[in-house]
């Protein structure tokens, strides 16, 4: 009896998990399917799901119209650069907060996070003017720095949480063995926090990849990433859904593939220390 109850519960839980997963993934699946339809099929009512004449025409049109590789390369540089730079700065910051906290550490952490509550448009003009003065408009450097600064509070918070899970005694032992501060962070702390650092890297890479306010407002032709690529296919008058879907699929494909291959690491990192 107990065995059948457990089996039934397992089936129900699994089915529920698949249903939730499918519901969350459905908009992406629909976008991918639409990208293989003709424009007429894309808006047909009732909608067609799988049984339509699959075509690659939309991808050909998008490829012909836009320099996809340039947008992709800019996205990789901007998202990758800002993430790596952010982690390099955040690791020592999170270390000091986790292992040598002061009376104000909690306040500082909270203050850092509160900067995320400021609407981005509120600082658009000051940052735009700074970029003009420094000659950094439409440059990848500006976006690497700005996205790093925007995501830094989250990176510090995540790393701080992971570091707090590591017993301070291990670091003390390393110090007793004569490890310098640099060696302590590099050879003791970092290897132990690899799952946490990996998930922080991945999450922030995704956040930077999807960022669509600064990347649209501070770029023109040279540094525009994939967010600008998608924006160029949207139109209030005469929206071509199939082509927009093809452009969207091309924009999300790299991050989907990255997420797929690193899902184990990502889940491990996100649940790190969640259950003791």
């Amino acid at each position, binding site marked *: 009896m107990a065995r059948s109850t457990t089996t039934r519960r397992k089936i129900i839980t699994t089915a529920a998990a698949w249903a939730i997963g499918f519901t969350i993934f459905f908009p992406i699946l629909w976008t991918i399917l639409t990208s293989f339809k003709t424009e007429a099929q894309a808006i047909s009512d009732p909608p067609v799901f799988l049984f339509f004449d699959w075509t690659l025409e939309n991808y050909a049109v998008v490829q012909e119209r836009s320099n996809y590789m340039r947008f992709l390369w800019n996205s990789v540089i901007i998202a990758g650069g800002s993430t790596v730079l952010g982690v390099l700065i955040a690791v020592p910051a999170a270390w000091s907060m986790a292992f040598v906290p002061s009376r104000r550490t909690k306040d500082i952490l909270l203050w850092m996070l509160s900067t995320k509550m400021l609407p981005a448009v509120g600082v658009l003009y000051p940052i735009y003017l700074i970029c003009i003065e420094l000659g950094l408009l439409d440059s990848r450097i500006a976006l690497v720095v700005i996205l790093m600064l925007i995501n830094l509070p989250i990176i510090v918070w995540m790393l701080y949480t992971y570091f707090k899970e590591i017993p301070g005694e291990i670091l003390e032992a390393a110090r007793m063995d004569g490890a310098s501060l640099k060696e302590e962070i590099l050879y003791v702390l970092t290897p132990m926090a690899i799952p946490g650092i990996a998930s922080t890297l991945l999450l922030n890479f995704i956040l930077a990849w999807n960022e669509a306010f600064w990347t649209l407002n501070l770029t023109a*032709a040279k540094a525009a990433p994939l967010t600008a690529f998608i924006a*160029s296919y949207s139109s209030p*008058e005469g929206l071509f859904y199939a082509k927009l879907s093809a452009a969207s699929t091309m924009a999300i494909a790299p991050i989907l593939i990255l997420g797929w291959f690193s899902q184990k690491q990502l889940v491990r990192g996100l649940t790190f220390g969640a259950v003791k």
Partner: protein
Amino acid sequence: MSLKSTLSAATALALVTAGGAYAEAHSPTITIATVNNGDMIRMQGYTDQFTEQTGINVEWVTLEENVLRQRVTTDITTSGGQFDIMTIGMYETPIWGSNGWLVPLDNLSDDYDAGDILPAMAGGLSHDGTLYAAPFYGESSMIMYRTDLMEAAGLEMPEAPTWEFIRDAAAAMTDRDNDINGICLRGKAGWGEGGAFITAMSNSFGARWFDEEWNAQFDTEAWANTVNFFKDMMDASGPAGYATNGFNENLSLFQQGNCGMWIDATVAASFVTNPNDSTVADSVGFALAPDTGLGKRSNWLWAWALAIPAGTQQQAEALQFIEWATSKDYIELVAANEGWANVPPGARTSLYENPNYQDVPFAQMTLDSILSADPQNPTVDPVPYVGVQFAAIPEFAGIASEVSQEFSAAYAGQQTVEEALAKAQDITTEAMEAAGY
């Protein structure tokens, strides 16, 4: 081949390649910000020909309309210098021209024939008689209707119908069991979406945004008549959820055969008559936007135009491009390659005198619609502003976005029309007082 001749050939090839790369790197490059629509995308395809003729390289930044508006506004107000040419509309041009943000286009060449620009377009893109942007294409709005459904309802569409006729025809064509709505109109919030439609419609009902003293006018009977008429007609004969429908949603509905009539941008005519995208392509008729007999029709006027920001370092090159892209020769170039139905419409008088273009089914109705809109005198009673579906003042976009949200809430049944109008009056009055009018 000997080593010597191989080396010589390689050196020559390297020199030629390096020379080409040097020339390309050192030839001037202009950056153009533009919107994503068919005519603009088509123009990008012909840019190589411009580069071949002039040696000027062109970089395109294509963005969605609202993103583009925000992007170019930020750039021009901070003198960012990101763009050498901006694609802007009739709303921005007179305001930015008066602020000194745009280069006046008063030195266009004789060959360009600036006098050929349709007067309505030139008027809407000027400030104090000076042209600040050259129209690439222009549009108005008109009725697109299903000839088969109209015939089945036993009706005949007049060339210039009244709103009463449209309401009755919509009711007669509606067949909700078969997913046919008599009429599809924009109800979506946003000054360029439902806000543009209801403003143009209100002109034909004798309403206006402001009186001559800049006082808001939403507490007038004319506005109550406009919004009540719209809501009653759409509730009876419009599609479900029309309060959130904009151009794209209605285009899909019409192309799928779910609308008897659709009043919207003239540019939609080419979409609904294209058999590749539209299931009703062979049964579409056109008529002027309706009126109520007060002397003003409910069609709008808009142009996407090319302007040069005052801060650009490449003014001469930018002007050269504008002359090329908005010339008669460019129209001929597109016609020769893609047919007359695909040339950018609504900008030049000579296009409508061309017998080849007169054969395009919606050409004459587009011209008639454009000519019947008067941005200088858009309303029955006099107003202090220029613009048909907008008032060309900087505050308008913000105010109209809020007002259109109130109207959309009324269409959706979340509040009454009277409540929406009262809120619109308060929003507008408050904003105009704060702005110092």
